[in-house]
């Protein structure tokens, strides 16, 4: 019997060795887990200001980030994998953001959306209450430029995050590797 193996649109990590009646897949468990993880990232509904509207646009009909597996926006951090910091973080909000991040289960990822979350943006000079970049509070994986970024830019950031996860070079994995190597 001939088995036709149609290549999936997104290549599965590993190599297939054809044999009679099928094939043998060789892969590493880490790669498979990362592959699965990257395609089902649930974002946390977290928007403080203008960028939140563009995040909503990205979720809505025209741009639709559920095409990439970001479908299920969660209202609680306990069920979320990725936090998209959409908007300015001020001193009063900083402990709340830290707490939300701490409540998220591992592995967790952070996208800093827009100029405010990246560096304070337009509110960098002469303000007494703005945190100059969300990375002062929590570690950030992907930065997006723009004030606010276009939905395409956010989609690009989400895809970049997926690639980062697939490559196995996420923060936690690098840290574990360094520990194993005694560094």
């Amino acid at each position, binding site marked *: 019997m001939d088995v036709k193996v149609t290549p999936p649109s997104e290549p599965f990590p590993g190599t297939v060795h054809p044999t009679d009646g099928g094939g043998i897949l060789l892969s590493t468990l880490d790669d498979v887990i990362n592959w699965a993880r990257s395609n089902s990232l649930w974002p946390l*509904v*977290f*928007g*403080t*200001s*203008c960028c*939140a*509207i*563009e995040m*909503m*646009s990205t979720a*809505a*009909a*025209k741009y639709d980030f559920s095409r990439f597996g970001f479908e299920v926006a969660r*209202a609680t*951090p306990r069920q979320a994998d990725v936090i998209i910091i959409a*908007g*300015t973080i*001020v001193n*009063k*909000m900083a*402990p*709340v953001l830290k707490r*939300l991040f701490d409540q998220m289960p591992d592995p967790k990822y952070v996208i800093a959306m827009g100029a405010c979350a990246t560096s304070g943006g*337009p*509110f960098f*000079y*002469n*303000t*007494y*209450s*703005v945190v100059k970049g969300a990375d002062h509070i929590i570690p950030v994986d992907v930065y997006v430029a723009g*004030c*606010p970024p*276009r939905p395409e830019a956010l989609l690009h950031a989400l895809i970049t995050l997926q690639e980062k996860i697939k490559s196995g070079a996420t923060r936690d994995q690098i840290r574990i590797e360094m520990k194993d190597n005694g560094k």
Partner: protein
Amino acid sequence: MFEQVSANNNGELVINVGPQHPATHGVLHLLITLHGETVTKLEPNLGYIHRSIEKMCESLSYRQFIYTTSRMDYLSSHINNHACALGVEKAMQIEIPERAEYIRVLMSELTRLASHQLWWGAMAMDLGALSPFFYAFREREVINDIMEETCGARLTMNYFVPGGVMYDIHPNFVKRVKDFIVLFKSKIAEYDELVTGNVIFQNRMKNIGIISKEDAISYGCTGPTARGSGVSCDVRKNYPYSIYKNVQFDEVLEYGCDAFSRYQVRIKEMYQSVRIIEQLIDQIPEGEFQAKTKAVIKLPKGEFYTRVETARGELGVYIVSEGGTTPYRIKFRSPGFSNLSALEHMVKGHKIGDLVAIMGVLDLVIPDIDR
């Protein structure tokens, strides 16, 4: 932070809604005292997005400070910019070319439509209906595309400058707006059919969040929140600015004083905005789009107060000038701040489930409240 739930001696429970909560439309924090399921006390705790815009403006020039206001009430960014530009122009006694006035009013009304659409989608989503969110954003994207073609941005436009507008409108602008109006007129009927006439929706909205006319005035409510209680407070009618005095439109007033009245005011306002756009779109005069102004703007010494009608109510910009290139003090009288102060009055005695409906119809934009 007051994160823990605590019960006091009267059997009342104090809970926190926000700052991270899907129904607060941002980072509003409400301390709610509950007796059973009934709200007995509500206290807003603001400042989770207080970006010190007023302090920043004291060190920005009169051309620069306008851009911070786009980030204040980002859903009516054109109208915010309009208020600041008007203030500077009034103080400098700059005459605006008529073409610029037409463009400004058209852009403001398009912004109002976009803002009301987003409110409609988000409010319906708060009440548990997810599809209106997608319908509203579908039409809103068309407005965003029109804006983008002319202003180069989708949300924070920074298009109005002292003396006019920054660039001329795109050649496609008139045609695309006309196409949009045709599309939108058919869609708004759909909105009405889907949500307004829905029995479940009406049952949830009627007779909640009642605020009388006197109370609405005393709490300083403006915009659709006050007009739902029969308070005539449309700045475009009462203190007409720009070319609003030459435009035919009605101030929408409802007298039900409840959340459903406020809902109806906003829906009817969309029809009025369409009416304004239809009147102006064919009559944009030829000519300059920007008056000649000095490169460095210096305001004369004195105090200047300008008010405009945003999608949420009356925005006031109070500029105190010492004669320099930067303002001495700027105060933004934001509509959301005063509307929020009436929230406790509206919610008291209602069930906690109604809180979401009342807040949804208030259309709060938190950066506008905190500034």
